[in-house]
């Protein structure tokens, strides 16, 4: 899970709360995101560092604790992400309920794979649901995973085997677990990867037939296009390196187009647009997926 990108009400400038794990307490405006992007790239799946086995020393632990207090501080820079989390569950419930071939928690409890889990905001909450069997949460950054693991120790309900953190990328996950998961989630992740099409392909392989691939991201908007004075491009697969983060935002129509070419494997997408209203939090707004943050899901046939 990457730091949340969010657009406030339509018509306002895009803003990012990026860099949470790296820049404590800073909310970065759009023009400062380059360095965050560089950091994110170094951790993205295409050029992921090999998972390192971490033996913690005292200095690191205190360092991670400091990071944890920011990632998990509901009044810190991650607050919008915390506020968004319940909507992810609402969306997933809606997806599951929309199709009779969905896995049903009444017959068996659900298995989740959370890709790019970050500090574990979604992974923890999914593991706590009474309808969940287990959650496997992966992230290429061992630094962030240490934060996640430290935080999960605070709740006995998350003890193994309910929640498992793995320092891995989707490429390094064992192929034996392909097709094993009822829900594969990529929250605020896809805008940080260099080849989204290949990434989606890979993640999709882990979804059980009848299960759902669920993601959330942010659209490139007309407003932000004007403010940054850049020409919109077809992002999928053609973003050159070193470009601005904004270029990697993916529009809902582009995701639709991607899955429209794969109807043998995937059902028709479900979408929910959400808008962040300062002071009250996230609100579902019909058709706002064209403007800002949105959820997107497809069911595996």
């Amino acid at each position, binding site marked *: 899970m990457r730091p949340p990108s969010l657009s406030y009400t339509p018509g306002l400038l895009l803003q990012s709360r990026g860099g949470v794990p790296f820049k404590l307490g800073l909310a970065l405006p759009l023009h400062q995101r380059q360095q965050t992007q560089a950091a994110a790239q170094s951790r993205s799946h295409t050029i992921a560092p090999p998972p390192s086995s971490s033996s913690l020393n005292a200095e690191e632990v205190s360092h991670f604790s400091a990071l944890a207090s920011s990632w998990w501080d509901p009044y810190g820079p991650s607050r919008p992400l*915390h506020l968004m989390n*319940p909507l992810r*569950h609402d969306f997933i419930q809606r997806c599951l309920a929309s199709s009779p071939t969905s896995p049903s928690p009444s017959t068996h409890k659900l298995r989740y794979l959370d890709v790019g889990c970050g500090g574990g905001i979604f992974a*923890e*909450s999914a593991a706590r*649901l*009474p309808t*969940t069997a287990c959650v496997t949460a992966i992230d290429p950054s061992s630094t962030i995973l240490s934060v996640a693991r430290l935080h999960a*120790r605070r709740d*006995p309900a998350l003890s193994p085997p309910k929640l498992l953190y793995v320092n891995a990328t989707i490429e390094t996950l064992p192929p034996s677990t392909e097709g094993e998961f009822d829900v594969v989630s990529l929250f605020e992740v896809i805008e940080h990867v260099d080849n989204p099409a290949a990434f989606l392909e890979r993640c999709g392989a882990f979804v059980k037939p009848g299960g759902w691939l669920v993601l959330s991201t942010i659209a490139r908007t007309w407003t932000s296009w004007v403010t940054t004075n850049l020409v919109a491009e077809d992002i999928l697969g053609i973003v050159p390196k070193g470009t601005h983060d904004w270029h990697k935002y993916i529009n809902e129509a582009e995701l639709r187009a991607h899955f429209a070419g794969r109807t043998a494997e995937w059902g028709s997408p479900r979408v929910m647009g959400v808008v962040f209203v300062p002071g009250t939090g996230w609100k579902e707004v019909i058709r706002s997926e064209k403007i800002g943050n949105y959820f997107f899901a497809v069911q595996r046939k």
Partner: protein
Amino acid sequence: MDAVIRKRAAAYVCRSCTRSQRQLRRNFSSAAPRPDIYDVVCVGGGPAGLSLLTALRANPVTAHLRVALVEAQDLSKLRSWKLPLDRFSNRCSSLTPASALFLDKIGAWSHLERDRVQPYQEMQVWDGVSDARIEFDWAPGTAPASGTTIAYMTENLNLTSGLLRRLEELGGVSVFDNAKVENISLGEETEGLDLREWPVVHLTSGKQLSARLLVGADGANSPVRSFAGIKAQGWDYERHGVVATIELEGQGWGGDQTKIAYQRFLPTGPVAMLPLHGNLSTLVWSTTPANASLLKSLSPQDFTAMVNAAFRLNPTDLAFMHTQRSGHVEEYSWRLEHTKYDSRAIPQIATSVQEGTVASFPLKLRHADTYIGERVALVGDAAHTIHPLAGQGLNQGQGDVQSLAKTIEYAVTHGQDLGVHMSLEPYLSERWAANHVLLGVCDKLHKLYSVGSGPLVPLRSFGLNAVNSLSPLKSFLMNQAAGSGMKVF
């Protein structure tokens, strides 16, 4: 120890046997170092605490939670509470239809002794100084479809024993009654777990309960609130509420079908006569501590004369009678001859007071700065104490519980840790401001009517008379009182 409520099964084991069982288990648990972890530990088994646990157990979404109740008193006394229909406990509350609806939803309403619950349909409120009056009766065509009941007079013990019966029917609660909280600390870090933000309730028995969420339903001097470091603002009114169960000469001017609540504002505080079953009523008389102790010292005959005087005589006569140690019966009948009043607009004549029902308690206003902390929530009197003049205290507590139970349900369905501050935020935002407005309104009403003379008197009388003659405004206010209309707060 954890006398898990089983459906009545425990009732067949004699108390000494259960006691030795308890002792045995207690020793066992103190040997085991692993913390005894609960999702919700509720300290306080009053109306708020019991209805919170009942709401959580009755809802299928939250029924799987591991919950515990810690109560200082022996619940077996409450379980066996029983009074004949001509005797009533002196601590009664006026339950709004909104509260009754909630109690019904959690399955508790049907467990109350229903013939001891008295609905009333009208209110008469007047100014003791100027006689300005507002009559809350339903003019033809103004009665809401949901019914004309303004509120239900209920003995607090009837409510709590009904809630306890419902809770026992539901089962699954670890009950620690007769249990004193020795202290509350924070948990520890062990190899696999970091419980340093989890409250641990230490009972004098040695038992320790770790709480994902610790609920303070432990009254105005809440130990849970102190543990959480939450301050409560407010003041004492230097008034005491005198309560008693009164027998009237009849069933009331509206008979058995239309019961009427009466409240007269005196400069020393409001005096209210609220209808119970048959010809009984409950008295709530807010007055100075000195007057209160005098009233408590009177013979039943003199006390009854003072109650009649409080609704009839002018404030000067009444003040004089408070200076007498005895002979109120004669003094009252002599002064009544020289007083004009409309006997149909006030309660029927009080004929006697039930033995042992005269009591008093100090009146306070308190409001906690917040209702939530990390893994802590306050409900009911632990969160706020209100002047009883609008009969809202217990209803506010039920409103808190309804909101907190809903907040917990949302947390469960969305995988949130139900104890953390963030998950509890909706409860705070839903309840704090609403309660604060109501606390303020009742406080201002109290102050407005404690003025015995001067320009405020005609002004407030004008206000009361004006409201009384404006029927749309009046029916709006009545709908408010009945909790059925659109919400002001």
